[in-house]
């Protein structure tokens, strides 16, 4: 038996937000008479942490403690429209909606405080739940007092709403694919380096280490973004070497129907994972955020494939890279076909004949 180690690399980019229908999200916020804040957003939290991050955006923007925020995404009667939790849009797109709503609330807090303190709103600031006069911090009142005054003195509701809509991008030229506006809210970038060990007698691949670099825009909550990146790495590992719904694709037979026959990664498969998180604030995201949840499983498969080449000198181009496919590639070990300028790594190439005839096979 010989175990071979190899290293491989991949770099990727990925859009934040959707390319259809303007990708709307909306939010509204109201403040209770004691200053506590109710945020209504339609964003489902599927584990990604949007309840947390959107609450942080509101607390930051209003200048109140995080634990003053009640976040309600529980139903469509009270929460306004959100397109949904996908396309890495919950922090950026839906986050912008709560940000805008919070800014409105902040203005109203300052307006009431201005009347109470008899100071121009421009000269007020809010932090830690207290409105104070810039330069004269001793002159201040609590946001709780502001909310009480709004309710019982001024007869006003401290509330705000916000909506984010990307101007709907249209494909202006179906021949060329040119669009009139960006069909995304931002783009993020990442790279992954993989180290693998390959058993050249069985084709078994063990992923030993993944080192990753992600442009995250701004870490709204570093621990949560790490959680996305680590979880994505293991899902990408699954896509790269373990998981397939159709082991004999294109055949639809012999599908794994449960945990014992479909190979999701467990702790047993966990490689060493190290991450570099790169802050590169986006132009339009809340506090510079970008969405990175979706892309988090995109870079590992190629990095692993390239590491396998580095280890044993064969390309496996059908994913997942199961032991069977590695061994088949080792058994068939071949150089690309080189003719003049042409370098053909794989023979089944129909690209030049396909579009005109729409039949397969060169």
């Amino acid at each position, binding site marked *: 038996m010989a175990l071979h180690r190899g290293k491989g690399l*991949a*770099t990727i*980019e990925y859009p934040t937000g*959707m390319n259809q229908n303007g990708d709307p999200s909306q939010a509204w916020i109201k403040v209770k008479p004691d200053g506590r804040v109710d945020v209504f957003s*339609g964003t*489902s*939290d*599927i*584990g990604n942490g949007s*309840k947390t991050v959107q*609450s*942080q955006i509101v*607390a*930051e923007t209003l200048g109140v403690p*995080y634990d003053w925020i009640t*976040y309600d995404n*529980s139903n469509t009667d009270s*929460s306004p429209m*959100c*397109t*949904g939790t*996908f396309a890495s849009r919950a922090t950026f797109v839906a986050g912008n909606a709560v940000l805008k709503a919070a800014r409105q609330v902040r203005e109203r807090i300052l307006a009431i405080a201005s009347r109470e303190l008899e100071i121009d709103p421009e000269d007020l600031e809010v*932090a830690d739940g207290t409105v104070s006069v810039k330069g004269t911090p001793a002159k201040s009142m609590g946001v709780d007092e502001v909310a009480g005054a709004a309710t019982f003195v001024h007869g006003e509701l401290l509330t705000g709403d916000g909506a984010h809509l990307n101007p709907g991008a249209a494909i202006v030229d*179906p*021949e*060329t694919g040119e*669009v009139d506006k960006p*069909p995304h809210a931002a783009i993020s970038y990442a*790279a992954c380096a993989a180290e693998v060990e390959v058993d050249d007698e069985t084709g078994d691949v063990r992923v030993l280490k993944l080192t990753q670099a992600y442009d995250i825009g701004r870490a709204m909550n*570093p*621990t949560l973004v790490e959680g996305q990146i680590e979880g994505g790495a293991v899902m990408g590992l*699954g*896509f*790269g070497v373990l*998981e*397939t*719904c*159709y082991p004999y694709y*294109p055949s*639809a037979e012999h599908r794994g*129907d449960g945990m014992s026959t*479909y190979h*999701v990664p467990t702790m047993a498969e966990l490689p060493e994972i190290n991450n570099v998180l790169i802050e590169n604030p986006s132009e339009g995201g809340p*506090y510079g955020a970008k969405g990175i949840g979706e892309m*988090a499983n*995109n870079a590992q498969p190629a990095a692993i*494939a*390239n590491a396998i080449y580095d280890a044993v000198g064969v*390309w496996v*181009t*059908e*994913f997942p890279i199961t032991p069977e496919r590695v061994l088949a590639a080792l058994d068939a070990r071949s150089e*690309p076909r080189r003719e003049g300028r*042409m370098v053909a*790594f*794989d023979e089944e*190439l*129909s*690209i030049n004949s396909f579009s005109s005839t729409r*039949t397969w096979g060169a």
Partner: protein
Amino acid sequence: MKVVGARLPRYDGVGHVTGRTTYVDDVRLPGMLHAAALRSPHHHARITHLDTSAAEAMAGVHAVITHADVPLLVYGHLSGGGIPGDEPLLAKDHARYRGQPIALVAADTVDIARAACAAIDVGYEELPALFDVRLAFDDDAPVVNDAFGNWYDQYEGNLDVRQIRKGDIEAAFDAADLIVSGVYRTQSQEQVPLETQVCVAVPEPDGRLTIHTCTQAMYFSLGVVCSHLQLPMSQVKMVGGTVGGGFGGKVDTASDTLTALAAQKTERPVKWRWTREEEMLASGNRGPWHMEIIDAVSRDGWILGRKMLTIHDAGAYGRFSVYGVTKHSFHHTGAYTIPNLHFDGYVVFTNRIPTTAMRGYGITGLSTAIEVHAERVARELGMDPYEFRLKNANRVNDTSPNRIPYEDPSTVEVLQSLASATGSELSDDLRAMTRDQRSADMLPDHLAAQIGSGGGH
């Protein structure tokens, strides 16, 4: 900034670790019925008859839902984007994939509901099934999709292909020192959320419906439910927002609509929770992709042009696949700037489970293909993989395949950081690179006119 950027704990973390968080399956209501689905055992069949009377007569069975109970049977998930619907909520005349729901039974217990499903009399005439996208275009191929045939044919301009054409692809290939081709296939992956699809639908005294949903997108699902049931949005209250994992697999949750129909018909709360086996074998998963790439490259390591053909195996119905292929086309240069492009992408239908969104949708397989191809090209050129990637990495104001200038591309910095983190030595030249817009004198003549002119291409 103090709150944003802080390492605060999860908003709902205490509930999660103490067993107090309520997920949909934890909802229980007096008089709640339980549902089970009858699914097609065949990959492709004509349904010759469907008789539910024996099942309906069973003790403990309260309702059997079939296509005849659905006010609007066919609704397209992307109809808002102008893409016609093609998928019936329940199979009517044809079953197009194994696992396709044909009927839903609501009964006192899950066991009774399952037994009643077995008692439904369905006649099938098996039809030849299509699984191989490479056979979909043959004249004698079985026809999979009622609305579109075997591939989606209603792109803008009545095209049946998503195209990108940019620059002068023939000139790029004429100028190339090497023309490197490769074929890449990526596979179906199941999202495997630990919480399987589950719904509790409750008829309210005022005639409204409350739907406890595991959807990733409550408003999207609200639209789907209201469309199939032909109700205004005021008549349905979706309750959810706390989901036991999704990863894309809980956007098109048909469980909501079907359970709602059962609740309407029985006038009782109904719960439908999928088994793990149903989740694995009958829920939408990541679709397979077939990708062919030919790059025209110069001896000194520039990618001058790319031809690419993508065939996306969508499964039996469209769902989000047209969106997925469009997104795929917009990103088919990956993190590089390639000035001359010729891309064709097809959505092809086969008799397998309709594929759907999954993390990285439209791009996971693409990134995989592009990056193995990049490594091959670099190796063929005898070039360091970092150098090849850094050289071609997108820079500020370069344009994407769909002509959008990159505002803040960080590929250069990302690669430099990765090299540093892995102890890979980069030359001074590579370390000195930035994302800043390239000046024309940094480029070979044949690219300077295309890339270095300020990003108009």
